């Protein structure tokens, strides 16, 4: 198996950290609304894992595609996106259908990586500044 690119690991760690922080926030909101039970925790765990896993797999696909010809890179990304979407469909459908998962706690964390990316420029600027300072 090929070595995973450091950029992929770094970005996945950032996304994973942010998903954990937002998941804790969501749990707190459920507690505050007095609607917390074990189904919220299980749904959050399922969906958070799927969201981070999807990002990591996308990173691996990007890494694989970057070393190829343009037409082959397009095909790799298209196939990867379709397979990942199917995987997410299965996971989210299971979360919605199985009663031990809270529907809201399953659906909301899927969008946490998008929120994490929105805040990325704040941390990116800091990294760039550190490099310039050095």
């Amino acid at each position, binding site marked *: 198996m090929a070595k995973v690119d450091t950029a992929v690991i770094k970005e996945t760690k950032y996304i994973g950290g942010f998903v954990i922080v937002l998941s804790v926030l969501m749990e707190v909101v459920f507690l505050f609304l007095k609607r917390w039970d074990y189904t919220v925790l299980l749904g959050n765990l399922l969906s958070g894992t799927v969201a981070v896993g999807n990002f990591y797999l996308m990173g691996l696909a990007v890494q694989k595609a970057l070393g190829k010809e343009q037409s082959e890179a397009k095909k790799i990304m298209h196939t990867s996106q379709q397979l990942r979407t199917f995987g997410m469909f299965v996971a989210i459908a299971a979360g919605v259908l199985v009663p031990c998962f809270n529907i809201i706690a399953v659906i909301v964390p899927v*969008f946490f990586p998008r929120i994490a990316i929105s805040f990325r420029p704040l941390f990116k600027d800091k990294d760039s500044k550190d490099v310039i300072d050095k």
Partner: protein
Amino acid sequence: MLEIAVGIILGCCALGAGAAMIAGIGPGIGEGNAVAKACEAIGRQPESKGDVTSTMLMGCAIAETTGLYALVIAILLLFVAPGRFIDILISTIG
């Protein structure tokens, strides 16, 4: 009559889910184009591979969000909405 109404609800929900998933086509094409251009950029400047990969990942994740919105809508239409609509129908009929 009730059976026809339930059938129409289920059919419309399935059609809606299918229509929502049309949005799932876009991200795959977009990601493919973005990665193809990134390959070109790395070919010109191999030393910028790390930065390009990092930016690419974020761009692909943003592009994919559209597909995720569609996926969630489709799942809700397939698995959650029919039950709710049928409950509303039955409570309306009485």
